């Protein structure tokens, strides 16, 4: 039996996922919610970025199911001891990527280490050379022959597999859509390929194929090579980049969502009730806002560090300790970004309380609580949504900066910020160790670009001001 480990952020992530699923089910029956979402998905760029975002989310979710493996049974006591190491489903799925650790740096697709070492030959003499990697390109033997051919062969295989998978995907998609619209499969496939549907299924299919291609390339190549090289302690950079996805997603989503209920409540209350409540809320957010964000985060994180350092016994594993720090970072970041949303919502509520349909509700003697939940809340949700989506990408980018400053996630946690921070010092080396940096930047760039494109589409669809343009 394995022992499941539910970290705080895991719980919140799955809660969030559940909320999203419930919302989708609810929204299906509400045309005024569905209509703008249809507008979002009718754009090709937006549809493609959603697919890419979902791929990131999938990796993040897989990486959020944590557990500890049992150690071999210890005697007859029947008591099972568990390994101190906390693993995730992703770790299990990528298998060897995690365990095949070299000694130190090696370049992508390299066969030998990056730096020379003094080695002892069989005859006892010593020589300085680049040592052969233990796992990298191990299939090629010691002599390392035909590397290019091998890579080509494996890539070709990936392409063939992708083509097959894509055709299969097209069939599944056409069968599903065909059943919904009551049309034969072949005809539906044709309309998909002609891109004649209101939702750009062809674009979605192409994006999925691209992702599948990457997946097969990874499966075929990463099994035999370190496709993105290894880092200072010999860990596979591709594996580290994958593990960092979860951190980026957690920061991007939980940060806004943790403070969301609070921001909505205070913002609407301030705008609707006005008077002294408004004064208090305004005072609080002006005060928090006037502290430079980085410094507020730094102050809070420094204090957390002191706290953790003095209460090390609270945490069973390093993963749990890092997780608490991550959660705390989200809360602190949330506090700094909460003020913006609160101010926006206050403004909206101020405007709405003068709206005629609110006045009409007052006229009928509808109670204040009902006015807020039935009339104000649904009409400010677009503001909330736009803010959440817009904040996501800037938070992902902020994580890297904070890690650099030294107030980001725990140094033991996999994150793009830590990858950059670790690799930055090696820029002075000649030749440059570039792959860690580039891998982190690349992963971050793809995620942020997809998020930005998606948020543009969301804003265009939901913001009444941009809609007319």
């Amino acid at each position: 039996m394995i022992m499941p480990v539910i970290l705080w952020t895991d719980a919140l992530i799955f809660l969030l996922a559940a909320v999203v699923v419930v919302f989708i089910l609810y929204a299906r029956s509400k045309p005024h919610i569905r209509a703008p979402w249809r507008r979002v998905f009718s754009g090709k760029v937006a549809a493609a970025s959603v697919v890419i975002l979902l791929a990131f989310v999938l990796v993040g979710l897989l990486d959020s199911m944590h557990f500890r493996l049992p150690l071999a049974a210890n005697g007859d006591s029947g008591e099972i001891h568990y390994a101190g190491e906390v693993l995730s489903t992703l770790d299990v799925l990528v298998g060897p990527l995690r365990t095949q650790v070299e000694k130190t740096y090696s370049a992508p697709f390299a066969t030998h280490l990056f730096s020379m070492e003094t080695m002892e030959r069989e005859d006892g003499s010593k020589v300085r050379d680049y040592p052969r990697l233990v796992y990298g390109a191990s299939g090629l033997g010691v002599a390392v022959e035909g590397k290019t051919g091998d890579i080509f062969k494996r890539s070709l295989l990936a392409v063939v597999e992708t083509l097959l998978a894509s055709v299969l995907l097209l069939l599944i998609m056409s069968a599903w859509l065909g059943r919904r619209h009551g049309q034969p499969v072949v005809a539906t496939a044709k309309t998909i390929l002609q891109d004649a549907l209101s939702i750009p299924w062809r674009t979605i299919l192409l994006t999925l194929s691209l992702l599948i291609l990457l997946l097969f390339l990874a499966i075929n190549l990463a099994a035999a090579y370190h496709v993105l090289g290894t880092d200072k302690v010999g860990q596979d950079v591709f594996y580290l980049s994958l593990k960092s996805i979860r951190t980026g997603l957690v920061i991007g989503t939980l940060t806004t969502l943790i403070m969301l209920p609070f921001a909505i409540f205070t913002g609407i209350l301030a705008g609707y009730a006005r008077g002294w409540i408004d004064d208090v809320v305004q005072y609080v957010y002006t005060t928090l806002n006037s502290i430079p964000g980085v410094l507020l985060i730094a102050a809070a994180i420094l204090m957390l560090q002191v706290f953790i350092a003095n209460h090390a016994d609270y945490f069973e594993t390093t993963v749990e300790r890092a997780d608490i720090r991550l959660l705390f970072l989200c809360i602190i970041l949330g506090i700094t970004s909460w003020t913006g949303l609160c101010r926006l919502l206050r403004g909206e509520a101020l405007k709405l309380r003068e709206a005629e349909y609110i006045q009409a509700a007052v006229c009928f003697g509808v109670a204040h609580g009902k006015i807020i939940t039935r009339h104000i809340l649904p009409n400010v949700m677009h503001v909330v949504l736009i803010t959440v989506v817009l904040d996501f990408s800037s938070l992902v980018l902020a994580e890297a900066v904070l890690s650099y400053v030294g107030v980001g996630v725990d140094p033991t946690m996999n994150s793009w910020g830590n990858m950059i921070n670790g690799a930055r010092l090696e820029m002075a080396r000649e030749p440059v160790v570039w792959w860690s940096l580039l891998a982190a930047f690349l992963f971050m760039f793809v995620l942020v670009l997809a998020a930005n494109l998606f948020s543009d589409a969301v804003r265009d669809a939901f913001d009444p001001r941009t809609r007319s343009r």
Partner: protein
Amino acid sequence: MFAYIVRRLAYAIPILVGINLLTFYLFFVVNSPDDMARMHLGMKRVTPEAIEKWKASHGYDKPLLVNTDAADIHKVTDTIFYEKSLKLFLFDFGSSDDGRDISFDIGQRMLPSLAIAVPSLIIGLLVNITFALLMAFFRGTYVDLSGVILCVVLMSVSAMFYIIGGQYLLAKTFRLVPISGFDSGLDAIKFIILPVVIGVVSGIGAGSRWYRTFFLEEAGKDYVRTARAKGLAESLVLFRHILRNALIPIVTGVVSLLPLLFMGSLLLESFFAVPGLGSYTIDGIRNQDFAIVRVMVFLGSVLYIIGLIMVDIAYTIVDPRIRLT
């Protein structure tokens, strides 16, 4: 106008008090000075004497709020709250945890910060407005569309990539400028160029896209139709009518940033080893120097509030509709 500024300044007082209380709570209540001392001295085998000695040498050995041992007024003044928090209001910053005079350091480091921040802001503003105008002029065409896409791509790149990439390309590969460092006087220029260029480039994406929306919002207004109905050329409509109106939010937005320029840029200064306030802050955070962090929090808040007041004043200057009362 005068009454307005007086009122705004009066409003600033409770906010600064709030910030002061918040930092006091964070730094001295959540964790006691003992915790801090232990942290600085290393976790293992700290003797109570060492802790007391550290606290005494840094002025943390006093009671937090009320000193029952002291006489009359000193009951209140001879405390950590008075010494470390209230004195900030007098701009008496005391010394950092490693014993240097913070006010002196700040004075020293202000100029290098400004030397980077001011040119970055001005050049960045000009570049962004130019790009935004270009996109607005060609709105709805492929020039505009590709411009927007380019902006989204540019703003999706991490600021650190711009810095590292810039250092690698311009300083290391082409050896046009030094990688990092600083110098006094005119010699500083060669050190300033790269950080300024990178500061400008990394801001283009978000900046010009944002400004473009201002231009487009103005372009949809009725008075633009009036201007066209007068027979004005499209360029005249853009420069005389749209630009004037769109500059209002742009200028006021920039004005709010002006005071914060003193704080410097954290990333740029740190990567380029510029001895400014940004790198001072980062070093303070990295060395866990609470005194410096506390002072910078206070200073940042004061500058932010000054920025808010300046925005209101700027509005009355650039927008004839607004009169402060």
